[in-house]
């Protein structure tokens, strides 16, 4: 498409054209109305003057007869800028006046008429128009008084000219304005199109420029940028997942394969093969678990689960999960206490929140169990309890899981939430390194967050979620 074609197709330009037509029509109507009224006004003025003079002459004729009338007409005819006068005998013979010629038959009837005329002293060719009135006086004398219409025509011409000019100016200015506005709009739209094209080509870091004028384009750009931000973070997450899958699933897969190969090479009894097969199944189950966790995190992060959200009681979840883990904790020499009496309504996915809490409790049991406390001798047997709480704090619902295990050094606290991060100390314990990532993803899905705090000693994991208010609030 050519630049001009593009310009002509813009909405702004089309709108300008529509406005242009509307304004032209309006201007034409206005001038027409003005011209019409001016004409009427002039006609009225002429009529008043003519009628006045006619009356005056009539009075003179009635008082002093034809001689006086002729004298008066002669005097008036000679004044500069005078009206038209003609006094004739009943048979049409001119007695006095300044009219040289008239259209034929004008004098025959009484009343108002427009006619072409020529004054006495003027050459043959000079014809003008006049509005005249003819009256028959007693005695058959006819008298004509009229006034030139040149003035009216002149004003009318001026108005017509003004009309033509103003329409022309409106059109020129309108088109120029349209082009100007369209080009401005087009320039910004073109800039946006250009940016989106580079983004579509794969460069997701591109952003639309925001001028700061706060106009509709700026608002659009800000919104589109927000959308791009979200897309980019989702893409980044996806890429991270892919990378992590590549790394952390390939490692156990390699191990699996090596083990099978080794068995094929060296094993020579059924028992040995059986053992390797059992190990293989176990390893593949671990793989499936890791895979499930990854998918779950990805789903939680994409917000896909959001549709199935309903209101539920977090305190109940805390009690249920604690009840599920209590025997396990006891088995490991820990006490598991729960403090969640108050109803704590949250809008969300009960299953996911349960799983998140289960992960936290599972972690607490895993790391705070006396057998796992090799690295922190400071903890005595008295303080080996795990405490699960669910409470309402203003507009948040806070779930905490506190233990008195070794805790996490403050430097590592933000890192452990990342996928597959396992601290040195925990490498020997089973786990995929995805537990906290899932908890964090679930918290964010519900518009909340996961915080890891020092429980001095130990760790306190704290999930805060927005409370479901009476008018249900949208999770941010």
């Amino acid at each position, binding site marked *: 498409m050519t630049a001009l074609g593009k310009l002509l197709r813009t909405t702004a330009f089309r709108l300008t054209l529509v406005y242009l037509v509307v304004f032209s029509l309006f201007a034409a109507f206005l001038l027409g109305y003005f011209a019409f009224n001016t004409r009427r006004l002039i006609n009225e003025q002429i009529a008043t003057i003519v009628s006045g003079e006619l009356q005056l002459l009539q009075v003179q004729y009635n008082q002093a007869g034809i001689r006086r009338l002729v004298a008066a007409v002669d005097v008036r005819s000679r004044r500069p800028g005078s009206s038209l006068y003609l006094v004739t005998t009943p048979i049409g013979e001119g007695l006095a006046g300044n009219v040289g010629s008239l259209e034929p038959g004008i004098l025959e009837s009484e009343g108002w008429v427009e006619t072409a005329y020529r004054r006495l002293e003027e050459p043959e060719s000079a014809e003008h128009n006049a509005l005249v009135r003819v009256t028959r006086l007693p005695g058959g004398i006819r008298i004509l008084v009229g006034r030139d219409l040149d003035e009216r025509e002149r004003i009318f011409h001026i108005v017509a000219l003004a009309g033509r000019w103003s329409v022309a100016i409106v059109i020129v200015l309108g088109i120029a304005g349209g082009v100007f506005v369209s080009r401005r709009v087009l320039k910004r739209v073109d800039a946006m199109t250009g940016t989106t094209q580079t983004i579509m080509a794969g460069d997701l870091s591109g952003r639309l420029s925001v001028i700061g004028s706060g106009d509709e384009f700026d608002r659009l750009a800000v919104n589109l940028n927000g959308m791009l931000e979200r897309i980019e973070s989702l893409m980044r997450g996806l890429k991270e997942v892919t990378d992590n899958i590549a790394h952390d699933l390939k490692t156990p897969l390699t191990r699996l394969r090596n083990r099978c190969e080794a068995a094929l090479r060296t094993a020579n009894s059924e028992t040995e093969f059986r053992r390797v097969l059992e190990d293989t199944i176990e390893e593949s189950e671990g793989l499936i678990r890791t895979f499930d966790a990854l998918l779950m995190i990805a789903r939680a992060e994409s917000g896909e*689960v959001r549709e199935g959200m309903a209101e539920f009681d977090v305190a109940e979840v805390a009690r249920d999960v604690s009840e599920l883990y209590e025997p396990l904790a006891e088995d490991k020499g820990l006490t598991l206490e729960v403090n969640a009496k108050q109803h704590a309504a949250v809008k969300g996915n009960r*299953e996911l929140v349960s799983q998140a809490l*289960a992960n936290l409790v599972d972690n607490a049991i895993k790391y705070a169990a006396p057998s796992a406390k090799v690295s922190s001798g400071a903890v005595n047997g008295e303080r080996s309890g795990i405490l699960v709480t669910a409470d309402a704090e203003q507009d948040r619902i806070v779930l905490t899981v506190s233990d008195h295990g070794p805790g996490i050094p403050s430097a590592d606290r933000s890192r452990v939430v990342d996928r597959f991060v396992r601290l040195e100390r925990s490498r020997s314990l*089973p786990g995929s390194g995805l537990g906290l990532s899932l908890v964090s993803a679930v918290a964010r899905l519900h518009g909340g967050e996961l915080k890891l705090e020092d429980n001095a000693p130990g760790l306190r994991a704290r999930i805060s979620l927005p409370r479901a208010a009476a008018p249900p609030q949208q999770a941010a």
Partner: protein
Amino acid sequence: MRLLIIEDDRDAADYLVKAFREVGHVADHAADGEEGLSLALDGGYDVLIVDRMLPKLDGLTVIGCLRTKNITTPALILSALGAVDDRVRGLRAGGDDYLPKPYSFSELLARVEVLARRHVGRGEDTQYRVGDLELDRLSHRVVRGKEEILLQPREFRLLEYLMKHAGQVVTRTMLLENVWDYHFDPQTNVIDVHISRLRSKIDKGFAQPLLHTVRGAGYMIRDGAR
């Protein structure tokens, strides 16, 4: 037991047919939704195993068609989609159980057997009895021999579920789903600890253990004397 396996993956289907035959069941195979639907309509099956994504007619539609024709053969849905909402959708479409892929055969077998038995109409008895162990669902009383056993509410539900399916293998996931209503994997085997607690209450001090561990599969409650 006669089974119909509707599954488009040839290898997976062959494996299932063979595995079910090995444990003494009859299994037919349909490779797409249409064939599966017409075979299922002819009836005579105890349980249907339906893959969710099938050529021609997807699994949920097959089950939906059967249900509108008042064929109530229990159906277990197999699906690669394991998330909670997919599961809910599957059950809402008329499925009776849902097992995400990849699954272990012992898990599938245990679930299929429970489904088949449920269909035969074992019903909701008010009392369960295994050997000298009795459970009354109305009064919430559990008695072994002459001795009353006091159980926590959850332990009662656990025992109730096991006794309802007495003589059948019940897997850990089945317990987690039916007793706790959780569909996620709790990583550490919390169920084992609950079972061992329950076992210490109902079996300790009795010569004949009733609650058995089935290696590689799950648990079963049965009268050991038989």
